[in-house]
């Protein structure tokens, strides 16, 4: 429908994954976002992630609220159901979808207005419930779709296109998630796909709620000099505290991975040394921490580290915290492993005899 057709994500046409699908099979409708919008790079990263993880396209459910970011869900996985809900309420829709059908690969995409303003309460509570899903927050510091008002993630002093400086302190989804006990917290930058893709992969494999905050510049309203969410500023001020590499279970089994024998979570010893976390499917997430004394499996340390960097004016990116084994929503509520939607009615209705029995008790 657009009149400035953008070339679809480029890729070697022939490459196929374990399912015999090409990247094209993971793409969606043509983007209607502004040329250069960070969100389109996130889309590309998601396409690559899903392709490389051999996700069965129609097994995924894509959910979002309202905003330019929310439109992202239409631009990948043509073959799976998508849901553009109402502004800021995607977490509850995702919670319901996952409650009813836990077999769905639940992917939520949101924006900073959607998640940190109108949707802040829902975001906090979906984290608290540890609903198993990948939650991508396309963070640009503004309300793009309504033309550039500051969002709750805008930094103090960051200026709008009109030159006004933001006065209110920002809400950092990463610190918030750590405080609320999130079990997977990472941050990426739409301009750095090599870093972002492994983070998305790990988040997708995580058994619980996986927040991936992605700084995703808005070229139309927040990419100017003076903005702290511009491409330039982000490139200069992000600091990858734990670059990771994902060793998929396949490669592990085929014995390629170094630590294929090891399991459980390994903790880094010296600075720069590598640690690893085993994902539910057996894949390994190997992290190399560039800063001394940093271990993404230690929540308190992670929080302190992120704040320390922030106080130095730097934005921590990479795998910030991961904690496998915490009970997810379904674990906590003891739901059947089989998706509720798959249970036959007969196994749900107590029948007339049971009712008669109950009636006898009610006299």
């Amino acid at each position, binding site marked *: 429908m657009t009149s400035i057709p953008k070339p679809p994500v480029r890729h070697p046409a022939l490459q196929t994954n374990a399912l015999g699908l090409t990247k094209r099979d993971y793409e969606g409708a043509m983007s209607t976002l502004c040329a250069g919008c960070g969100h389109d790079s996130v889309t590309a990263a998601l396409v690559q992630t899903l392709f490389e993880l051999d996700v069965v396209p129609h097994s995924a459910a894509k959910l979002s609220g309202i905003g330019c970011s929310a439109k992202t869900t239409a631009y990948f996985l043509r073959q799976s*159901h998508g849901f*553009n*809900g109402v502004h800021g309420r995607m977490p*509850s829709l995702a919670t*319901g979808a996952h*409650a009813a059908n836990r077999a769905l690969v639940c992917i939520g995409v949101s924006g900073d207005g959607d998640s940190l303003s109108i949707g802040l309460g829902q975001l906090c*509570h979906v984290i608290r*419930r540890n609903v198993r899903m990948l939650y991508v927050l396309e963070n640009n510091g503004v309300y793009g779709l309504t033309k550039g008002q500051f969002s709750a993630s805008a930094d103090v002093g960051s200026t709008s296109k009109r030159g006004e400086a933001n006065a209110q302190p920002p809400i950092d989804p990463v610190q918030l998630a750590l405080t609320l006990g999130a079990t997977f917290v990472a941050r990426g930058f739409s301009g750095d796909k090599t870093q972002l893709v492994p983070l998305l992969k790990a988040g997708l494999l995580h058994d619980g709620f996986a927040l991936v905050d992605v700084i995703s510049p808005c070229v139309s309203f927040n990419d100017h000099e003076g903005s702290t969410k511009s491409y330039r500023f982000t490139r200069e001020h992000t600091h990858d505290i734990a670059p990771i590499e994902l060793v998929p279970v396949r490669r592990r089994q085929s014995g390629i991975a170094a630590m294929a024998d090891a399991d459980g979570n390994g903790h880094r010893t010296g600075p720069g040394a590598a640690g690893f976390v085993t994902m539910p499917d057996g894949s390994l997430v190997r992290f190399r921490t560039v800063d001394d004394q940093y271990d993404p499996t230690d929540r308190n340390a992670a929080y302190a580290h992120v704040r320390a960097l922030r106080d130095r004016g730097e934005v921590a990116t990479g795998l910030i915290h991961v904690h496998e084994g915490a009970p997810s*929503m379904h674990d906590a509520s003891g739901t059947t492993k089989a998706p509720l939607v798959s249970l036959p009615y007969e196994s*749900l209705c107590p029948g007339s005899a049971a009712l008669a029995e109950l009636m006898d008790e009610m006299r």
Partner: protein
Amino acid sequence: MPNDFALRIGTVNGTGSASANGLLMQAIFRMGIPVTGKNIFPSNIQGLPTWYEIRVSGDGWTARPAAIDMGVALNPATYARDAATVREDGWLLYDSSWPMDPKLARADLHLLGVPFGAICVESFTGDRERTLLRNMVYAGSIAALVGIDMAVIDGLLEERFGKKRALLEANFRAVRLGADYALAHFDCPLPFHLERMEATSDHVLLDGNTAAALGAVYAGATVGAWYPITPSTSLMESFGEFCRRWRVDPATKENRYCMIQAEDELSAAGIVIGAGWTGARAFTSTSGPGISLMEEFIGLAYYAEIPSVFVDVQRTGPSTGMPTRTQQGDLMAVVYASHGDTKHIALFPANPEECFTMMVQAFDLAERFQTPVFLVSDLDIGMNDWMCRRLQWDDAYRPDRGKVLGAAELERIERFSRYLDRDGDGIAARTLPGVHPKGAYFTRGSGHDKDAVYTEDADAYREVVDRIARKIAGAADAVPFPEVDAQEGAEIGIVSLGGCHAAMREAVATLRARGLAVDYLRVRGFPFDGVVGAFLRAHERCFVVEQNRDAQLRSLLAIETGVARDHMTPILDYGGLPLTAQFVVDEVTRRLAPAEEIALPATRAAAGAARVTA
């Protein structure tokens, strides 16, 4: 005449009187005598006045009583009110442990003093025990006064405390003490009293919230999301209890349901819609304030066509209003919920039995019409103890899943258009996530065409919303048919709904007994069936009886049937207490009286009526 009287017991909430009152109710019920209980309680946990009204009716009337034959005054804070509410020449039972409070003195009353407090001090130890057992003592006295069979009470106590012998003993004694004192000091039973009947054998004592919860379980609902709010909370809590009883896999101990206490009503609605989208039967239960908070999500479910069930257990509005009082004030808010052009299917149960059956229908309608469906109950139906027929279940029942394309069908078809009206009934087939790549589509609350593709084109937009309008109009034939009680040539027609029914049945009988030819129609679903309009047109004089200030049902009738507003005279009771037949009878008679007498506007009269009864 026996088996036709009402008691009103005034106590302090949080002091355990509820169980004593329930004991009396149940005992009378066990004696085979029709009985109803109305709990009039405060929005508070402990220390405020609370009342329990027990109506015994051999004729089986279940509405709230208009006149109280015996008052029981156990709360000094409400002595005056309690004495005032007893009918002329009625009886008043009070605690004579202390010199009688002048507030209780009313010349025409038969005063019955029993030293409940003193008895407890003598016979029991410990403040807590004394306070609790005082309730059993007055229960005993009442039992003796109205002639409750002690054996029945003993049986009930056995059932309750069987295992805890000491407790059982204490309760036995307390009841006996109360009874013996009464027998010794008054000539029991009083003129109005009980006589065994066989009228309750195929009935149970049940509240609407429990019944609706049962409906959800039997309908196969698997996801329940809610945020606690009086008077709907007990519905979801019962759902949980029934699920723990019937939905736990005996082998694996896994749960065949998922209940989520949401952080608020917006979230609860979102969870229900998300679950409905994936194909589960999901529901939420709330009250007025929750409906207001769900408005945006309801509009999404309507426009994106997602099955979802919402229970509104109405309480007195507006705003927070009176959380522990009843009303029918959400009718407009529910059926036209959300901004923009919307119209929703709603069911109006009249009693717990219908809460059960209609809850099941709600799920069938929601999936068949792919839209939000509302079960519009109220505090009186939902939380009070109703005598109603034993609930039945037909094991042949299977859910109506509506038009859902499975993998096989999708495999076959050329191309799937989510919002295309293939069958001309306004209902388009849907698909569920995770089933088949060809079933994929994009669900959205923004403008979309018949292929679910985003659009801003006038025609494409209209094609979809026009179809939705046809779809919902079609639901008029699918919702429960109105209950009509008509005779040849009656010129007066009365329309009502929901919780008014108990009082309406009685009022209609009374009016007819007085020689007034009245017909009665109770709407049970929205959109209205054609017969509703026909009924109104067929009667020269129409009354619409409902429990709200603004005659909301009348407005709906005017909008939807086209009958002129003023062809329908509103009869409105909205003080928060369950409707009485008396009120309806008086109002109808007053309106039919010669003009000059019609001075008093409805609301005043209502106030008047309520003054006698509250």
